[in-house]
């Protein structure tokens, strides 16, 4: 196996060097760069990148102590793998010149042809590299989101394969459909920052995977509760912060639409937190922190497709709607249906994304953003129909493609860890590490084992 790996590595290196060296970036039309917009999108990219570690803590706090590192490892693995995949071929599949309205061609393979000057096709006031980087961050967080559905039981090697295949075969095409010149964008579907592309696609794929690999051991017997709520709060805070980059940055310029997106994002997060907590307070009598942060994330998910198109007051209504819907879903419907979406990747992102995509078709208003469209409330029947199509198409494609990917992987390596590994915990059994050394022996000194 080592030999095979080495050969593979050498081949890859050779490929990279050939591409990298023989094809210097072409200095193209040299459109002028707007420093304000460029500053904005660079910083937004960094903020979106931070969402994935944010997710690592949001999710990491929810799992049991024995699995916290496995979640963090999955998030970091996604950051690493998708970053490289994107540079090599993800970007060109998503944003390369359109092929049949479904996928990009290979013009930008290895970022060949991408330069420090703006591209005339996308975001023509910022350097093309910046557009590449910004879009990359969306690919990362989307793949990372899925992991919440099958937390605490997936084999890491299977996860690596899954991420690579999923981002290439599911994310890249859907991103192309909506934002890269593909058929959904042509149809007029509005998805400001990724309600379908990011949240529905990840939520649905997570659900499919959770069903495919089955429940966690003991799930039916016990309620599994978060091991570290402050981590979940920290993660939610980083998500909220990064989401500003996500949604406001999706204006691709530091303008009034970005400002609108910023404000409605914050408003809907706030209203989502309030409505979730209100729902649970009425339901079982206690307002919980877990409810507050979950509601905020649900609000952020819901506003994502709508961010540049709706008024702050509409954002209040959307937040008030999405909290109880998601709460009902994760506390009751999930239990009824009996699947084990460990950390509610579908319950929050799938459901919240669906609410948001449809609400966009209701609340979008050209009075707020003349570049948008009018939703149901403002007499726009067409938009709502298109949003339904976009949601439906994403559900169907994400589900089928994910199923296929899982089938293929399970022929190569078991998707799930052994029962014993699961009982011991993934941190020790898969990664050979413990999260909290200080819980073990030796209050003052942790000196584990004799050096080997």
């Amino acid at each position, binding site marked *: 196996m080592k030999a095979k790996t080495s050969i593979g590595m050498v081949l890859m290196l050779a490929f990279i060097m050939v591409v990298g060296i023989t094809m210097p970036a072409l200095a193209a039309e040299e459109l002028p760069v707007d420093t304000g917009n460029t500053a904005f999108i660079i910083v937004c990219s960094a903020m979106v990148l931070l969402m994935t570690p944010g997710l690592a803590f949001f999710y990491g706090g929810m799992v049991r102590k024995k699995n916290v590192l496995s979640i963090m490892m999955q998030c970091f693995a996604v950051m690493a793998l998708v970053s490289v995949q994107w540079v090599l071929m993800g970007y060109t599949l998503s944003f390369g010149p359109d092929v049949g309205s479904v996928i990009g061609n290979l013009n930008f393979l290895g970022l060949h042809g991408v330069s420090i000057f703006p591209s005339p096709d996308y975001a023509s006031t910022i350097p093309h590299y910046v557009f590449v980087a910004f879009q990359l961050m969306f690919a990362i967080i989307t793949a990372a989101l899925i992991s919440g559905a099958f937390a605490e039981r997936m084999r890491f090697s299977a996860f690596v394969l899954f991420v690579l295949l999923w981002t290439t075969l599911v994310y890249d095409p859907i991103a192309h459909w909506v934002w890269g010149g593909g058929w959904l964008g042509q149809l007029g579907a509005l998805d400001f920052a990724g309600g379908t592309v990011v949240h529905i696609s990840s939520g649905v794929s997570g659900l499919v995977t959770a069903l495919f690999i089955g429940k966690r051991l003991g799930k039916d017997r*016990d309620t599994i509760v978060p091991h570290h709520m402050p981590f979940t709060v920290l993660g939610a805070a980083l998500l909220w912060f990064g989401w500003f980059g996500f949604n406001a940055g999706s204006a691709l310029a530091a303008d009034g639409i970005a400002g609108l997106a910023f404000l409605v994002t914050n408003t809907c997060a706030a209203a989502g937190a309030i409505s979730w907590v209100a729902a649970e307070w009425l339901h079982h009598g206690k307002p919980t922190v877990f409810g507050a942060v979950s509601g905020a994330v649900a609000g952020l998910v819901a506003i994502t497709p709508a961010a540049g198109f709706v008024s702050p007051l509409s954002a209040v209504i959307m937040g008030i709607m999405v909290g109880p819907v998601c709460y009902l879903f994760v506390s009751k419907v999930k239990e009824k249906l009996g699947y084990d979406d460990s950390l509610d990747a579908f319950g929050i992102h799938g459901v919240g994304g669906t609410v948001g995509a449809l609400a966009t078709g209701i609340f979008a208003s050209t009075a707020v953003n003349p570049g948008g469209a009018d939703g149901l409330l403002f007499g726009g029947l067409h938009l709502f129909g298109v949003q339904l199509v976009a949601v439906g198409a994403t559900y169907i494609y994400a589900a089928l493609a994910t199923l296929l990917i899982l089938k293929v992987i399970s022929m190569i390596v078991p998707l799930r860890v052994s029962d014993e590994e699961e009982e011991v915990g993934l941190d020790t059994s898969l990664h050979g*590490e413990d999260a909290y050394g200080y819980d073990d*022996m030796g209050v003052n000194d942790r000196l584990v084992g004799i050096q*080997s």
Partner: protein
Amino acid sequence: MKKIEAVIRPTKLEELKTAMNELEVRGMTIYNVMGRGLQKDIKQYYRGQEVSVDLFPKVKVEIVCMDNAVDMIVQRIQEVCRTGNIGDGKIFIYPIENVIRISTQEQGEKAL
């Protein structure tokens, strides 16, 4: 009176509690321990340094009861906590001289 001390797999704690409820044994004291018996070492790695872990997390359950309840309780603990593999844990039985309930000052049997 006796004190029964069972060092068990952490994952068996819930079942054990349920079983004790059925026996109407409610009083118990529980804490985390690390232990080893016949279980083998595990390896961990930190930046390439191999570390050998030879202590395993267990839960210790202490139940103080009347002499005549010991057999029943020990029997039940064994049933619930046995998987048949190494690492299932052990039960220790100690003599105890007296028990006092602080809230009422009751002593001995009444205090259980």
